[in-house]
């Protein structure tokens, strides 16, 4: 046991660092692209605050196409682009390019779903007060959806983490790379198992942090924002819509919200 960690410890530590680096930088860049796209998808939808029919369908189509390209194929397809931007197609920095491209449209959909949850009555109230579409986006849609957006960001980060492990196949670095090199090519199963366990731990920590933070900033949910501990969260934090809506004659409900 002692010798295992003295042999592989520093490599695994570096792997953790690389994985976090790839995941977080890619998530950041994916949000830089995906957040505005998600906002555009919601705003230009037929029921949105600035409906633009054909623009919305074209954007939705592009997002769908990008989302349906399998990551492994994307990984290989973008190698020339990666070389152009990073100078190499190997290592964690190089992996950021395909990870960002794969995650951005996913993020756009997550953001879209979060913003679509915002109560249309509140948007209507903002219109009635003379808000412009831009003000509605900045002061209503994004702030009102902040908790859902944060849960979405957690899902995005975890999904990117999963993809980053796949990037190991083309020498992307990180824990996934280690697991593949040692477990698959060199049959050193224990190294692979430890790498995978570390990945699982990172996922669980990310998810727990995301859940807790989202709950902390949510002034709407009186109960904890319910979301399963899904690994590669395919779903969304579907909140029970208007769960605490108007109760007739309720001068007496002093909800004890946790803040």
């Amino acid at each position, binding site marked *: 046991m002692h010798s295992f960690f003295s042999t592989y410890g520093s490599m695994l530590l570096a792997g953790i660092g690389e994985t976090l680096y790839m995941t977080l930088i890619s998530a950041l860049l994916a949000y830089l692209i995906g957040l505005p796209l998600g906002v555009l998808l919601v705003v230009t939808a037929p029921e949105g605050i600035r409906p633009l029919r054909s623009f919305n369908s074209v954007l939705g189509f592009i997002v769908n196409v990008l989302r349906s390209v399998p990551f492994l194929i994307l990984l290989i397809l973008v190698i020339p682009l990666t070389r152009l931007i990073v100078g190499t197609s190997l290592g964690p920095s190089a992996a950021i390019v395909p990870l960002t491209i794969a995650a951005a449209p996913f993020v756009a959909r997550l953001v879209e779903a979060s913003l679509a949850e915002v109560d249309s009555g509140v948007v209507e*109230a*903002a219109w009635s*007060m*003379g808000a412009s579409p831009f003000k509605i986006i900045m002061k209503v849609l994004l702030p009102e959806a902040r908790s859902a957006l944060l849960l979405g960001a957690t899902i995005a980060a975890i999904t990117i983490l999963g993809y980053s492990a796949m990037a190991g196949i083309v020498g992307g670095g990180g824990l996934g790379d280690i697991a593949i090199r040692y477990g698959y090519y060199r049959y050193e199963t224990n190294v692979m198992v430890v790498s995978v366990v570390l990945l699982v731990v990172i996922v669980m920590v990310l998810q727990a942090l995301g859940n807790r933070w989202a709950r902390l900033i949510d*002034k709407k949910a009186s109960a904890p924002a319910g979301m399963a501990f899904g690994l590669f969260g395919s779903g969304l934090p579907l909140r029970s819509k208007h769960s605490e809506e108007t109760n*007739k004659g309720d001068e007496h409900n002093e909800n004890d919200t946790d803040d």
Partner: protein
Amino acid sequence: MAPILRTEKLSKSFPTPRRGEDVRALCDIDLDIEEGEIFGVIGKSGAGKSTLVRCINFLERPTTGEVIFDGVRLSSLSKKELYHTRQSIGMIFQQFNLLAQRSALRNICFPLEIAGADGHKTRERAQELLELVGMGDKATSYPTQLSGGQRQRVAIARAIAANPRILLCDEATSALDPETTRGVLALLKDINARYGITIIVITHEMPVIEQIATRLAVLDEGRIVETGRTSEVFAAPKSEAARRLLIHPEDGLIAAAARHYFEDKGVALEEVIRDYA
């Protein structure tokens, strides 16, 4: 004196999802609302009341006809001018529509922020308004921590924060119990008396009109079928729609005028109530 708000032959049709006849939600609405009055619009569900308020501040563009606010035709305004004009037309809703992620105080700051104000002056004004609506101690509460009546009070404070000339109320008390309703209506009356804000109250409940409105219009299937002073309409309703609305299906209360009308016709009251409910 010119009316603060006037609608001229205001009509609104909605296209049906499948092609066919459009839904005519409003038809040739002519209204004159005087500055400082409390005007009621009553009609049963689906009569077109919400469509009418939404046309008044152009949340919905009328299909034909005009809305003239303070001498200005809303249809002649650019988008920017319209946004600016809406700051002078407050609105409250049945579902309150408060920002769930903002405290009561910051909800009231919201229209001021939209109007371009910010900083602690805004917060001072918001606190004053909270006190005005009897919620001075709830500044840091979030909407989910408030009861329905309290939420509507915050919504009222928010709606008048930017000093509007008119306040539109779309079924503002329909989600509240009778006692809370009386409190909210008293508050609206107080605000009307204090600041001279014109109030348009839209409801399907006659008691609400009775308590607050000096004049009213009866809306039925998108048309105004009767207008008049509240006391007059209650004493002698001319339209079938008004008579029916005077019957309160929940407790079977019937205004005297409606009772006479149906008795003259030789119709059993129980039958009418059953029909209505």
